[in-house]
């Protein structure tokens, strides 16, 4: 077997050295009845060529985003990632390393984490950022728990513009930990009165902007009301690219900012792995979940980096830890930080403007289609249209025409009764032709 270096002779010699006669002597503690004598009922080993064929055939049964006019978003976005990114993250020294617990031989990882933290803090407009969470949704769950710790209260208010999956994650976690959640109803036109939901028991208000329907939300007033009531404002985003163009939550008073970083550096991957970005005000740093990388010096006085403040973490603090997270999104952070370094703010702003421009053009074109009603006043690269037919059906009909036309809101929240809403995203990968194809296909399907 190509992955196993030991030969039969090696094995015999090694058993002799250990002083046992048979490999199963080393498994003596396994209850006899449980020790398997035959290989399990799965196929036997396969060469590379065979594996490539099997998985190649499987992969061939999905429709890649790049192969069609593509407009799906709702928390996962198709962007162009430079070839440099995927090359570098596959370098052995990054790919096959572990969490940098031995900093003397992990300065590569530590330095990029330090750079990553700095980038995330700058993007969000916050004081400090951690070295990543699993993704935006679990990060949001952690943010709510953090707010509970900070405020010593246990009631979260969720905006109706929060991505339903994110809301579900918070709800599940809160349900399990016995905390309260007030979730406002789905709010496609950003009309909710969230201020009214904040009271003296509120630990945090969770507001997403751009919200799941694409609307941009001004958080300033919410922050004020929250702070007046001793609550924290948790600002969520699912499209990090928006921060190139839209006022960052840090400038609007957010206490914790959490979101999905997939758009920078990471592929769609059918939903994962992604990378959760997590930033906060300096004063809350010791309540943050996840790893933090900090600067220090070595025995020769040279600058170096280490993981720090780990007394917050499970491996030191155990049941008193701020989170149970251990493995995070290391390599996705690397992809993020490489892509962000290539972009720089100049590139980020430009790509963000292209996204916005493409979405504006698309919204204008779609507005001209009969049976399509664009709901948004404001948006970044995604907006919501109301259709004359159920969105799920329309999307299937579009797919049959070779267009992946967006995400029906009902896919995310079937019980919301908003079956006619379709979320449509347009990024820098879309061409005029793509947009025209979608518009014409919609005309056919709705016509």
């Amino acid at each position, binding site marked *: 077997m190509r*992955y196993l270096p030991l030969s039969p002779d090696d094995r015999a010699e090694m058993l002799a050295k250990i002083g046992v006669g048979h490999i199963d002597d080393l498994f003596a503690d396994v209850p006899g009845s449980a020790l398997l004598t035959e290989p399990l009922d799965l196929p036997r080993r396969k060469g590379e060529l065979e594996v490539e064929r099997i998985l190649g055939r499987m992969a061939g049964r*999905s429709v890649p985003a790049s192969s069609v006019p593509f407009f799906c978003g709702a928390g996962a976005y198709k962007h162009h990632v430079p070839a440099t990114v995927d090359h570098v993250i596959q370098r052995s020294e990054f790919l096959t390393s572990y969490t940098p617990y031995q900093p003397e031989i992990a300065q590569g990882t530590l330095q990029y984490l330090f750079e990553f933290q700095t980038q995330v803090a700058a993007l969000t407009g916050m004081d400090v950022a951690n070295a990543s969470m699993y993704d935006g949704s679990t990060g949001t769950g952690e943010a709510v728990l953090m707010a509970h710790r900070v405020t010593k209260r246990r009631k979260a208010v969720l905006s109706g513009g929060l991505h339903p999956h994110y809301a579900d994650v918070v709800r599940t976690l809160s349900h399990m930990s016995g905390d309260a959640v007030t979730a406002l109803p789905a709010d496609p036109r950003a009309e909710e009165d969230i201020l009214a939901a904040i009271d003296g028991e509120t630990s945090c208000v969770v507001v997403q902007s751009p919200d799941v329907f694409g609307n941009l939300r001004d958080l300033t007033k919410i922050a004020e009301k929250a702070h007046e009531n001793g609550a924290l404002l948790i600002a969520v985003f699912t499209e990090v690219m928006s921060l190139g163009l839209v006022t960052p939550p840090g400038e609007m008073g957010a206490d914790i900012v959490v979101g999905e970083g997939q758009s920078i550096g990471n592929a769609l991957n059918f939903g*994962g792995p992604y990378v959760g970005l997590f930033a906060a005000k300096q004063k809350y740093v010791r309540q943050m979940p996840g790893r*933090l990388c900090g600067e220090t010096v070595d025995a020769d006085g040279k600058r170096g980096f280490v993981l720090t403040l780990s007394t917050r973490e499970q491996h030191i603090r155990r049941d008193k830890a701020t989170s*149970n997270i251990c493995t995070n999104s290391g390599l996705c952070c690397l992809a993020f930080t490489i892509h962000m*370094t290539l972009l720089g703010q100049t590139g980020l702003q430009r790509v963000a403007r*292209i996204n916005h421009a493409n979405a504006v053009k698309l919204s204008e074109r779609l507005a001209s289609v009969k049976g399509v009603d664009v709901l948004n006043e404001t*948006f970044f690269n995604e907006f919501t249209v109301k259709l004359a037919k159920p969105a799920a059906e329309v999307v299937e009909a579009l797919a049959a025409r070779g267009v992946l036309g967006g995400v029906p809101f009902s896919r995310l929240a079937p019980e919301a009764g908003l079956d006619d809403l379709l979320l449509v995203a347009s990024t820098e990968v879309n061409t005029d032709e793509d947009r025209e194809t979608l518009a014409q296909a919609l005309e056919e399907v709705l016509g």
Partner: protein
Amino acid sequence: MLNRQGRPTTTGEATSDAHATFTGNRALQQEEALIFESGRYETTGVDFDEPEGFTPRLGNLERKGEIGLPGLSEPETMRHYVRLSQKNYGIDTGLFPLGSCTMKHNARLNERMARLPGFSDVHPLQPVSTVQGALELMDELARYLVTLTGMTSVALSPKAGAHGELCGMMAIKAAIDAKGEGATRKVVLVPESAHGTNPATAALIGFQVKSVPAREDGWVHVEDVKALIGPDVAAIMLTNPNTCGLFEPQIVEIAKALHDAGAYFYCDGANFNAIVGKARPGDLGVDAMHINLHKTFSTPHGGGGPGSGPVVLSQRLAPYAPVPFVTPGEDGLTLVEHGKDAGEEPFGRITAFHGQMGMYVRALSYMLSHGSDGMKQASEDAVLNANYIRAGLRDLMSQPFGDKPCMHEALFDDEWLKGTGVTTLDFAKAMIDEGYHPMTMYFPLVVHGAMLIEPTESESKSSLDLFIAALRDLAITAKKGETERFTGAPFHAPRRRLDETRAARQPVLKWTPPRPMAEAAE
């Protein structure tokens, strides 16, 4: 990469270097500044044309001012990250015997498979008719996991081991709630030797953690568990093989004791690599167990993640598995994404979308490659390699639980270092100079100065032979009281020992300009 002054940024002087250089570089070992020191706000390493002819729809929320993100051209970016990489140690560069972490070979075939557009370039919310291949892969992975563990079903979506623990414990909580015992069953038993994620997880969802004491044989004893069991006990979280590298011989009895008392058995499966194809958790009475695909099934650790922690469930817990999951539908496979469609009683959702698809592909590629026979052989080799190291060092180093076979990792304590002036930490740092990544140190906590060595099945006998010889040489030197090789180590790494206290006392968690950026940029 340099800062704008054309000098690499270091805060100190190289004092230990006989042939100090002007640049601070030492031939192939290069100093590297931060991108914030070498980059510029105006620079970008991507080319796009400015868009034209549109009316912004940002309302009054357009971002103003500098973001504070410098860019680098592509050649500079490449060099920056390549140089950073060269300061890292990886499995591909040497033996990485980090106990509990299963640092096994990461085949590039798996990387290639994960990048097939049919897996990597599909959106989680495309119509299911357009992602049949992706669903097939998940379904096939689930079949493998269920078969290898002998369990009833699997929840794929947990994002890593700790998240899997959370998922499994939530399923247990849901089952308890369903029986109306939610208010009473509040206690989770956790052995002292457990990984930190176990108590942290239990606490996260409101359980109270009670410790099962450590015994001097390294095992959890059924009588200790029985002594703690009561109507308030919801579950035990037990690692098997355990964190001392031992298989729990009384596991079946422990499971039975819990079940008899109406409680559940959560098994931490981080060490599954020792027993794949040798024993099935389902045959041992386990109710829920997470599997670190990034350990047992070789998806790369990537400097700290991403991982994937599917949870296999017993018949008792299967109905409570969270959404989403894959099931056969009318036209091929379909996804159940909401409680109401499930027909079961899913306890909810623990992440957006469907989990770590990229890791699923790599893990299945590993499984197909090894096959049933190869996976069994891999576990045997992992155990053989660990015992070979144990046998090679046992006369010099002390074993906390006596001279008995281990599973896939060999555990030593620091008893043998007593009086030498050398600590476990010193010993680990001296290993770095010899070209090795240190073993896991000071874990499990119940063993003094623990050294947990997990070579995995990926090491050849000759690699182990040199490792043993090097460790013997170090051990003999330490015992001779020649401490310099240890207390000053590492001497040859990109950095010497780092000041962790300083880092924690006044945390510097991001770069800030030494003086206004505009000035610094000449």
